[in-house]
């Protein structure tokens, strides 16, 4: 099995690779969006806490 024929996918390259690429893209988007949703909430919570602490002192 050489690389050339692997990338060629028996002539189906123009279908197989976009499908896998799109899958990678959607998985990456989910990864990014989920991470962001969590870290955003974390920084917001932290800021609230700091503000509350400043106010109490």
């Amino acid at each position, binding site marked *: 099995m050489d690389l050339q024929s692997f990338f060629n996918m028996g002539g189906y390259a123009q279908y197989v690779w976009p499908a896998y690429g799109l899958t990678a893209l959607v998985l990456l988007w989910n990864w990014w969006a*989920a991470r962001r949703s969590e870290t955003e*909430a974390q920084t*917001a919570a932290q800021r609230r806490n700091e503000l509350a602490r400043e106010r109490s002192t």
Partner: protein
Amino acid sequence: MWTWFHKLASPPHAYRILGNLAPWFGWASLALILVASWWGLVKAPADYQQGDGFRILYVHAPSAWMSMFAYVVMAVAAGVGLVWRIKLAHAAAAAVAPIGASFTFLALATGSIWGKPMWGTWWVWDARLTSELLLLFLYLGYMALRASFDDPQRADRASAVLALVGVINVPIIHYSVDWWTTLHQPASVTKLDKPSIQIAMLIPLFIMIAGFQLYFGWAVSRRLRGEILRRERNANWLKEAS
């Protein structure tokens, strides 16, 4: 049993447990998806009819499976939240929806790409693609309803009712679309249905599905942690935690 359940459903507990679980889900899913991709793209034999084109199955079928799995998870979470008034369940439903919608989109897109070499067109009103499209509409409606409320509690409960109505409807939609396509299409176009699958072809499929499941677990954990923080922002445990 019930005290254990309530403890688990308490936000600080869930927040901590999800944080501990997420990395395991994440790394395991990465490993499985990589193994399955290699197996599916390199090691599995080509289909005698569809050649290497059938390898799209390894991303199409798992995403189609996840799109339905996520909808059921969402509806069950919504039902639990509605009946027992558990906030965490509503938060979970909210976390699942965008992930499920993205898998539905992926199933549609890969199905369409697969359809091009098999049918000669990008889109065919095939039973599976049509059901998947309607499922996407259901997800979009659910998220639109949730987004249109300012009060998160109302958004939770209203969208939960919708999710339950939707989950009753999903089998009806599925059946009606199946019935509709069998009436309109001759049976010869079902090449996509069953590429005479051998065991050697199935193994990477199952690995990929397992990888997608774990990935789903990871993404839900992360999003759910975010949801918990947003909903609990005035709670005491948060102040003590940081």
